[in-house]
């Protein structure tokens, strides 16, 4: 498994896409931090970027990588290696390289300009989002045999989580506006890793006072130790579940 991961990492490093990605993040982060004197303001802008770019790049990059490495995977399957260790190895390799890119691209600027708990939470959310979207990418690429379909599905997933879902939430809130929705809203946030990540960061930024009563509800929940454990475990669920499903399909799949 680890050997496969190592090969995958070497392979990715050679492709230069990853280097471009880290440089891009680095450029964006540095320019955001140097534009604003107040580092918490730039953290908010940086958060917006991270919440859009990181999931998109993670899911598309992983999907294309998986399809490009398809022949390599076929070769591996012919060897006496279990299928789960092949897939997990691939996952590990892609994850480590993308996380490294994020660490270089966002982690270093954050460490320089905003080395506080908010920056830390931003990094944690970024990591979790990267992992969960790689996991989703593996799911879609295992589920679809055709490359175009697989990439299409990945794109759809990203679009769903970053745009459509929030629209749906707005619709739901609008229809049930008369009802007490405190718990429902927390549940709704849990069904989208991007929303969850964003809310955790905003809670850390003391922006919650803006949010009035609802903000107080969030703060009470996500600020408590139970809330932190809850949100972390939900994030973990978002990483593990798609990967497990992908694993199941991959094991039975006729390559």
């Amino acid at each position, binding site marked *: 498994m680890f050997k496969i991961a190592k090969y995958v990492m070497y392979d990715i490093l050679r492709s230069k896409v990853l280097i471009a990605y880290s440089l891009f993040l680095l450029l964006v982060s540095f320019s955001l931090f140097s534009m604003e004197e107040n580092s918490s303001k730039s953290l908010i802008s940086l958060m917006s970027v991270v919440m859009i770019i990181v999931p998109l790049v993670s899911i598309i990059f992983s999907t294309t990588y998986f399809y490009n490495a398809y022949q390599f995977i076929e070769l591996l399957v012919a060897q006496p290696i279990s299928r789960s260790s092949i897939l997990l190895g691939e996952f590990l390799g892609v994850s480590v390289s993308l996380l490294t890119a994020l660490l270089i691209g966002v982690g270093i600027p954050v460490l320089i300009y905003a080395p506080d708990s908010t920056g830390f939470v931003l990094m944690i959310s970024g990591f979790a989002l990267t992992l969960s979207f790689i996991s989703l990418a593996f799911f879609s690429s295992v589920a679809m045999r055709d490359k175009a379909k697989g990439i299409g599905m990945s794109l759809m997933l990203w679009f769903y989580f970053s745009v459509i879902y929030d629209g749906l939430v707005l619709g739901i*809130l609008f229809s049930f506006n008369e009802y007490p929705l405190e718990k429902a809203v927390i549940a*709704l946030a849990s069904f989208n890793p991007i929303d969850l990540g964003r809310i955790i960061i*905003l809670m850390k930024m003391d922006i919650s*006072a*803006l*949010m009035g009563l609802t903000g107080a509800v969030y703060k009470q929940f996500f600020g408590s130790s139970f809330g932190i454990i809850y949100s972390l475990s939900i994030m973990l669920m978002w990483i593990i579940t798609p990967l497990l499903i992908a694993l199941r399909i991959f094991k039975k799949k006729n390559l």
Partner: protein
Amino acid sequence: MVCPDCKVKQLTEALDLAADYDTILIKKGIYSSVNTEIKKQVVIMGENYPIIDGQEKDEVLVVKADNVTLSGLWVKNSKRGSMKDYAGIRVVDSRNVKIINCKLENTFFGIYLANSKNCLISGNHSKGANYGKSDTGNGVQLWKCDSITIENNHMEGHRDGIYFEFAHFCLIEKNLCEKNFRYGLHFMFSDSDIYRQNTFQNNGTGVAVMYTKNVEMYDNIFRNNWGDAAYGLLLKDISNSIIERNTFTNNTVGVTMEGSNRITFSKNNFASNGYALKVMANCIGDTFMYNNFTANTFDAATNGELRENSFKYNYWDKYEGYDLNRDKIGDIPFRPVSLYSMIIEQMPYAVMLLRSFTVEILNRAEKSIPGIVPETFQDYEPMMKPNVL
């Protein structure tokens, strides 16, 4: 003269001996004074802050005569209670009373003026007893007063820093109100008062003023009033007032207006607030000119169409228009209310989507083809560069 080693050892004895227009000098020491009534027109001066101790039994000093001056005293430990407003220094039915450079500590109410005129409260420092909101009184309280000057005072840890009811023609200048549990400044039914160069910061819920007309506020600073229900300045049923050259920074809401008519806001600076302005639809005839709005999460919010309010020559950092004729005024109007702030106003739970990508898209769409945000809430002549204040 009063001191621990003198012939006259207590303030009460001195008051018995004194005639009108006498001066009583109190030297450094600790003097007990439970509900000492000052009924003669005397000047009481403290040297090196003698401690006047109420021993938490009743009020400390009660002034019931005209032309009394208290200065340099350190008034401590009034009783506290919920039936009576125990005060450190109470002034009742008097004129021309001066309270200068006194320190008040652990008093329920600090300085309490009732039914008095032409008084001066200057350079005092009052620190409230720290028992929480329900168990502290106000720093300076005026009830049914007229022509009072309050300047250079420092109020902290009270319920309200400065509280007025039925106080008219007063001047409030250069005071600092901070860390009060409720409001830094709070008044009702107090017409024709002027507030200048005061600072209100870190108060539980900022500044709230109600049911008053002809208020003038110049050069005040409202900052760091941050919390679930905090505002820099809450105006409720205020009319015909002028609010000029004030600074609002780091407040959850810079200014909230409800039922407030004919108010002129000019040359104010709104920076880094959650909401800079919240103007409810029942505000009529207000004018906002030459204000600067920078780095606020939301520049403005409202709950409906505004009537007869005008916005002109303000600088908005979110303005994206252009200036073809180079007269420094943007050619297209600016709408400070974003679609999302309207949505939140109607369904507070939607705050879950704060800063989400979808919300950005919605805001953009609304900006290019406005449909939902109030037609009337716009600045027709926004400035391209910040106004020089």
